Structure formats: structure tokens, C-alpha cells
């Protein structure tokens, strides 16, 4: 069966759309015939404008460049982030940053950058009253940057302080998650350093490095323009014409070998003065949103540990039944800043992802027990798979939840850009259609196929690193006590967990003082 990109209900949308935007539909109907094909999905990688017109009084921009920290040259780790910061938080050639801030002030607008491994996105929303003024500012910022020394000095210091102080000294959870990534991706891999860079490389970085990165990466070949909202009809053409000012360039290229892990568990304990212990664990997977098995694996991750939801299995076992911490979640896509938000930011597209379990800080005396409990539950998932009931309720949840993820036009635009990157149709349609086709067998097959326990990487942030290391390598029992009686079922399970074996060699449990991380 051949399906169009728009799906069945898409036809209705198209009609509605025609009423509202009569002229533009003519333009669109000339191209979408290329969109036929259900599983190869849309071949739109050679297009570079994504438009979501509507009647909102707000206009949202997402200007995406297919570059990021994976393209930091060796020894220049952090230049992608610093370049984006120079554009979004520095002056243009004609205006100082102070003047730009002044101009933005009465409109209450801002312009943000987000840098990940392969994507750098600049985003902002303005009220339509101010569209021309706002656009002229961000156009100058992106196309005619000032690259001033004083902006550079300020933003470089900020980048160094982020790594040195904010991550190392003020957010154990994000620290643990980022350390996990550095354990999985070796320094030689394009993903092998924090998006913000490394302290040493940043300290040596010059303004010329930033200029060079801009010249090489901010090209038409790397550009995708995203626009949503009630903008006037000819506006996208203006944008497209303006952005031809960028050099044509060639798509950014780099090698992305799969990060093969040596067999066995490896643990890194970051030693830091802190009240509690933050734990992250995971391993690389070969599935991304572009893969046909992604929807099935999404069901698994959601069932096991839907982000910030009390509905997931791990949360129920660790927090609800035992009160060990604030929450416990699982992911198959990068989700930075998870402690601050309920939904992931879009435009963090990657061609390689990891499976990750995030255990929020636990009281330090329960750290060893909780790590064992997480591994115990994870092993159980891999061994037993999901039940029919769990499969069906999670599928139903995700089918509807897809709409929640794209509740704002900015999120819709972000997801549309990501769908373009992964060559899939628009997100809620894709999810609804793919989820509907899945069976319990599909889901249990992907568990067996992709979730492997034989090369687990574990990052822990805690105070008594040597005590924990000693307990782990000697597999010392870690009995737990509670402040209230627990059902027999929990206590029986605790007996198993307190001695649950973590097979790790002595040399594979490292202690790292916090001030050495991201150095």
C-alpha cells in the first residue's frame, strides 16, 4: 500500500490549510508528490526549509545548522559551542551585544543557541507585531557576526565556568549523566567530549578558531530554516534569499564509527563533597529514530522509565515501593537538562544513541543497594521482557503522549526538523501509525536484540568514593533498612538485591576527583 506523507487525517488538515493559506498550498502541492513512500519515508534531505504556517500571533524561528561538537577539530574541543554562543550572545558587525539587547527589550524577545553533537540550532519566538524588527536583528547576528574580542573573552570564560563550576560543583545529576557519555565514547570518537568542550582546549582557544569554525560550518549546505506561526506569505522567500549570503559549502563530514565497548562492566566514581549519590548507567545502542525498531524500543524505555512519570516500572520499584530517591528513568535518546524539564528539547538529533538509566540522588548509605536494584530490575527486563498488559497500556500512552510533546508551535517545528533529519514523517502521525502496527513479540524481540548487559558503563557521583569502590569490587552485602514496615514481597526481593553480584574487575572501578572531569 502506498501512503502519502500526510496520512489519512492529513487530507483534512490539507483542506483546512487550504482555507487559511490558499496561495501557499499551490506551492506545496508541487513538491509533496516526492513524499510518497511509507518506510523509506520522505526523501527530503536535500530540502532546507521547513514551514509550519498557522494563524497564531506568534512566529517561531528554528535556524538549524548540521554541525556541532562532533565537528570540533582536535585540540579545539568546545569551539562549536563557543561559536554558537558568539552568534547568539555576542554582537553583530553593526551592533554591539548591548545594542541588540536594547533592541530586543521592548519586544521581550530573545535568541538562543543549542549545540549538540551534530546539530546547532538557533531559536526564538516573536509576536507578529515585531516580526520585521526581530528578524532583522537575528539575521544580522547569524549572517554578519561581530566576533568582537570583548564578547569572546566573556563567553569563553562563561564556557569554562560552566564545565568547572556549574557541572562539577553544582549539579551532580547532570555531571553523572555527562560522565557516562565520556565513558562510552572514547576521546578519539567525534562524540568523545562534552558538548561544551574541555577546559584545557577552551583556555587555549582564540577568536581565530571561532572565525574558522564559522567559515567552515555555517554554510548553505549545512543550513535548514525552520519557521512556524502566522508569518506573512512572502516571508519564507525573504529568509531563503537572505541566507544565500552564507558560503555554499559542502555538508560537514566526519567518521562516526560505532563505539564498540570492551566486554564487562566499567565503573567511574566521581569523588565530590555532596550529601548524596547520583548514578547513571548505560551502553551504546544501534537504534535511532530513523530505525524501524525505534518505536518498539521507545515502548520499552517508556514502560521501564518514562521521564518524570510515576507510571514507569523502575520508578514504582525504587521510589514508590522503597522511597529510595526522587525518581528513576530510562532513555534511548540524549536528554540533557532533564532535571529542569518534563519534555526533551528537540534538535538533538544524533546518528548514535545510548540506552541510559538515570537514578536520581540517593542517600549515600543506600548507593550500593540502589545500584544493585537498578541492575537487578534491568536484568529482569532483559530476561522476562514485557507483559501483554504493560505493552498495551504503554502503547496507548505513547500514541496520545505524542500530541503532548508537540503542544507548542515551537515544539512542532523542532520535531518537524528532527523528522526531516531522521527521514520519518511528522512525529505524531509516525508514532500513531508505527505503534499501531507493533505486537508484543516485536517489543520483546527488540529487548533481546538491543539491550545487552555485557558491557554496562556506570557513573556515580559521591563523597565516599573509596568506600563505595571497595564495597563494589568485593561484592560486599548492602542490606537496606527502612523507616516503615515493608510488604514481604519487597523484603524478599531486597534479600536478593543486597547480594546481587556486580561482575566487575578491580581495575575497572576507577575513582576520579571531580576537578579532573572534563579537563
Amino acid at each position, binding site marked *: 500500500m502506498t501512503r502519502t506523507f*500526510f*496520512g489519512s487525517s492529513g487530507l483534512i*488538515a490539507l483542506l483546512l490549510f487550504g482555507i*487559511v493559506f490558499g496561495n501557499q498550498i499551490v506551492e506545496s502541492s508541487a513538491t*509533496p508528490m516526492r513524499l510518497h513512500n511509507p518506510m523509506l519515508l520522505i526523501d527530503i534531505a536535500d*530540502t*532546507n*526549509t521547513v514551514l*509550519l504556517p*498557522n*494563524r*497564531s*500571533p*506568534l512566529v517561531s524561528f528554528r535556524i538549524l545548522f548540521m554541525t556541532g561538537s562532533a565537528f570540533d577539530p582536535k585540540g579545539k574541543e568546545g569551539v562549536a559551542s563557543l561559536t554558537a554562543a558568539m552568534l547568539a550572545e555576542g554582537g553583530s558587525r553593526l551592533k554591539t551585544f*548591548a545594542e541588540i539587547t536594547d533592541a530586543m*527589550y*521592548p519586544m*521581550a524577545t530573545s535568541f538562543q543557541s543549542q549545540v549538540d553533537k551534530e546539530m546547532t540550532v538557533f531559536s526564538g*519566538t*516573536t*509576536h507578529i*507585531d515585531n516580526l520585521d524588527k526581530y528578524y532583522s536583528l537575528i539575521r544580522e547576528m547569524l549572517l554578519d557576526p561581530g566576533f568582537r574580542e*570583548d564578547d569572546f573573552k*566573556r563567553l569563553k*570564560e562563561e564556557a569554562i565556568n560552566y564545565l568547572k*563550576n556549574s557541572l*562539577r*560543583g553544582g549539579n551532580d*545529576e547532570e555531571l553523572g549523566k555527562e560522565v557516562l557519555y565520556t565513558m562510552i565514547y572514547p576521546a578519539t570518537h567525534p562524540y568523545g567530549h562534552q558538548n561544551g568542550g574541555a577546559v584545557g582546549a577552551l583556555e587555549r582557544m582564540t577568536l581565530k578558531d571561532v572565525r574558522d569554525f564559522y567559515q567552515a560550518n555555517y554554510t548553505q549546505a549545512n543550513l535548514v530554516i525552520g519557521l512556524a506561526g502566522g508569518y506573512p506569505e512572502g516571508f*519564507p522567500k525573504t529568509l531563503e534569499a537572505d541566507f*544565500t549570503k552564507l558560503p555554499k559549502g559542502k555538508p560537514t563530514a566526519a567518521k562516526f564509527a560505532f563505539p564498540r565497548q570492551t566486554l564487562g562492566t566499567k565503573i567511574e566514581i566521581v569523588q565530590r*563533597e*555532596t550529601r*548524596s549519590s*547520583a548514578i547513571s548507567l548505560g551502553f551504546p545502542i544501534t537504534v535511532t529514530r530513523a530505525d524501524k525498531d525505534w518505536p518498539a524500543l521507545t515502548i520499552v524505555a517508556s514502560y521501564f522509565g518514562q521521564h518524570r512519570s510515576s*507510571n514507569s516500572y523502575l520508578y514504582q520499584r525504587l*521510589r*514508590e*515501593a522503597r*522511597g*529510595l*530517591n*526522587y525518581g528513576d528513568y530510562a532513555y534511548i535518546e540524549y536528554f540533557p537538562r532533564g532535571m529542569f524539564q*518534563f*519534555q526533551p528539547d528537540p534538535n538533538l538529533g544524533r546518528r548514535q544513541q545510548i540506552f541510559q538509566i538515570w537514578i536520581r*540522588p540517593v*542517600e549515600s548509605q543506600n548507593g550500593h543497594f540502589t545500584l544493585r536494584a537498578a541492575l537487578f530490575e534491568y536484568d529482569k527486563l532483559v530476561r522476562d521482557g514485557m507483559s501483554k498488559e504493560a505493552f498495551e*497500556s504503554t502503547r496507548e*500512552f*505513547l*500514541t*496520545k503522549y505524542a*500530541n503532548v510533546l508537540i*503542544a*507548542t508551535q515551537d515544539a512542532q517545528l523542532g520535531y518537524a526538523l528532527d523528522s526531516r533529519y531522521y527521514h520519518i514523517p*511528522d512525529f*505524531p502521525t509516525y508514532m500513531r501509525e508505527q505503534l499501531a502496527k507493533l505486537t508484543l513479540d516485536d517489543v520483546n524481540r527488540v529487548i533481546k536484540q538491543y539491550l545487552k548487559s555485557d558491557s554496562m558503563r556506570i557513573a556515580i557521583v559521591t563523597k565516599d568514593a573509596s568506600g563505595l569502590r571497595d564495597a563494589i569490587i568485593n561484592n560486599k552485602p548492602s542490606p537496606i533498612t*527502612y*523507616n*516503615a514496615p515493608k510488604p514481604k514481597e519487597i523484603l524478599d526481593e531486597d534479600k536478593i538485591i543486597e547480594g546481587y553480584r556486580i561482575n566487575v574487575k578491580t581495575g575497572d572501578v576507577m575513582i576520579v576527583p571531580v576537578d579532573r572531569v572534563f579537563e
Partner: protein
Amino acid sequence: MIKLLIIALLIFCLSMLTLAQKSRKAFAYDYAIDDLPNGLRLVTVPTDYPNLVALYIVVQTGSRNEPEKGKSGYAHLFEHLMFRGSEHYTGQERDEVLKKAGADSNAYTTDDRTVYHEVFSNEDLDKILELEADRFQHLKYSPDGYKTETKAVLGEFNKNSANPEEKLFEVLRATAYQRHTYSHTTMGFIEDIEDMPNQYEYSWQFYNRYYRPEYTTIVLVGDVKRDDALAMTKKYFGAWKRGNYVPEIPKETEQIGPRENHVDWPSETLPLIYMSFRGPAYSDYNKDKAALDLLAPLAFGENSDLYQKLVLQEQKVEELSYSFDDHVDPELFYVSAKVKDLKDIDYVRQQILDTYKRFSSEVVPQAKLDFTRSRLRYEFALLMNSSEAIASSLANYIGLRRTPLTIDKLFALYDTITPNDIRGTAHRYFVDNHRTIVTLNTKKEVAK
């Protein structure tokens, strides 16, 4: 350049016109308010965003409502306990219903309110209201379940405690307030959190006082009709019994001299300084709060002279910001700075103090004031980008006045403020005797 038009399935057919075209109303949506005889209020805001409904249940109880010694943090604890099950639904059954609805469900607590919120498909509204009515009227948790939840609250305190800014805010509150309940943060004092497991009986007392219809407003925003919403609300919440508890919140004593405090942080951090003065409570008719709302971005915002000097030109400060949220009772107006080098902290402190003084004596230019008014209006308009965002923005005002009308009153009040009002208000509030300054930096043994 090849062009492609991708059409979202969820087409917005917003009836809302631009601010310029419509009235000067800041809250541009039509809404209905319905009061039940038991005191419960329903605010319905139909929007044209299709399929989804945002349900926000606002209880006018926060850490402000915790005047008893040793009993801080209970409003927030309740935000947790409300998820552990009720008479007709265990926590697990509740989760199953929400899961089937694809709901994004959570809650938060502030100084003044506790808010329970969900976003879900409109076809599930009836079921979810039934579920909510059950926990608001017939909450059920065992002593054991209670104790387990107190540990999750401790876990939340622990995760926050890794952040120096959370710590310094806690110390600012405890230093600036001596009698009023704003002296503790919403999390509560750590010793009270540690004692929570022993307070099962007290927790029920708290529930019976505040989880009452007269404290509660249901806000429904999205693909919803008022008549349906009202009928369902009556069906499920109509039998809820009104309470009669009115807390005695101690009035803060007059501060008669400047106060200071300091925190040594156990790991590397940039030095922090928070400088506060006592400010007024929220009001949509008294000019003081409105004048200071306008002053805050003018004096300390990103395009203020101070920000330009300290952050952009001299680059001695990495972050400079202000905080002056809407509160039921008089709240602190404070400025925070993350200083790059400890040796500059006294300089930065003096610069901030001078700015407070400057705005107490100089008149701001009319054009700048007009820009600021414009900024506040657009800031609010930019928030309204989904049904949930509208509900979420409303929750603040519902917690204060139980009606969206207060938003329009507030913005109308902004329009009346003159440069002289700002100077006069600053002059009255930014007085040395009402000042509290707290600082934090890496303790000596750790600092390199």
C-alpha cells in the same frame, strides 16, 4: 533552493487576533467562572488548540500555610502524598487511568499554592475529573506508605542540595524573615523534613484543613466546553464539604537594621551574592508592587546600565539577575550576582547598592518606562503558546486572586505608573534597615 512545505497535522486555527488588533486586554481569551455552593470555583477557558485539555487544580496553600514550629514542608509533602492513592483508586490504578489517557501529569508547590496539573486528550476529561475528585475528597494513605513518601521528599531535598544557589536562597529567606513563614523555603527546614516520618497524624490534620473546596480552583483550558466542564465538576466535586480553617500567619516584625549572612560551600563554585530589600505583596490596585515590577528590569535587567557594566564591559560578573515574584504576603525584592573572582565581591556589592540608591533618587526616562511596559505585555503574550502554557500562566494569578480578571487589572495598573511613582516607591522600599545580604563562596580548604 528547493522548498518544501511541511504541514503539521495539528493545524492551529487560532481565533485570537494580534494584540494590536484586539483590545488592550492582557489576557485575551474568553473565559467563564462558575462557583459551586461549597466554595469550589471552576474557571473554563476554551481555546482553539485541538484535542488537548490542560487541567490545573490550584490549592491556595503553600509553605506560607505552615506557621507551626517543626512543621515546615508539609504543603510540599502533600503534593507527593496526593499521588499515593485514594478511596476508590489505588496509586497504581490512578497511574493506569492516566497512562491510558496519555496524560502528562505532575504537581508543584510554591510559597503560596500547590498546583496539580495534567494535559490529556479531551475524550478523557470525565474520567480524569472523577479521579481527581476522589483524591481531593477521599485521599487514602497508610502509615507505611506515608513514611516511604517522606523519604522521597528527603531525596528531593538531597538532589537540590548539590546546588549552591538553592542553598543561598534558603539562607536568604531564613535571614530576612524571622516570624513569617516565608522564612523557610517550600522544601522546608532539613530538620523538619527529617522528622516527617514521625508526623503521620499531623499530616491528616494538614489535609483536613486545606484540601477543601474554598481553597481550591479548577482551571480547564483547551478543547473544552464550559457547560460540559461545569456538569462534570458538579457531578464529581459537588458533594465536597466546605471547611472552616483559617490559618494565622504571623506578621513579620519590623526590621530595624541591615542583616548579613554567609555560606562556605564545600566544592568549587563562583562566589554568589544575593542582595535583598523587603518589598510589598502582590496587588492589582496598589501601585507599589506594579512600580517595582517595572523598576526591576529597568535597574537590573539585561539592558540595564548595571548589567551592561558588570557583565558586558567589565566582565566581573557572569550572571546578574533579579527576583520579585508575586506573593500573597510581602516578599523580598532581590538581586543576585555570580561573581567571577572573589576579590571583586565587595566592588560588585557596592555597585548593586549604588544602583538601588540611584533609582531611589533619579527619575527614569519616560521612553525607557514605556519600553518596559511594552516588554511586560509582550512577555506575557509570548507565554500563551499552548493550552497548557495558558493554564500554567493562569495558575499564578488563580493562586493569588482566583480570577483571570486580576491580570487585566494588573496590566492596566502598569499603564498608570509614572517615572515619579517608580522613584518614590524605590525610595520607600530600598532603605538600609530593610536590607539583607547573603554571600556564598568555596570554603578556604577547597579553594585553589
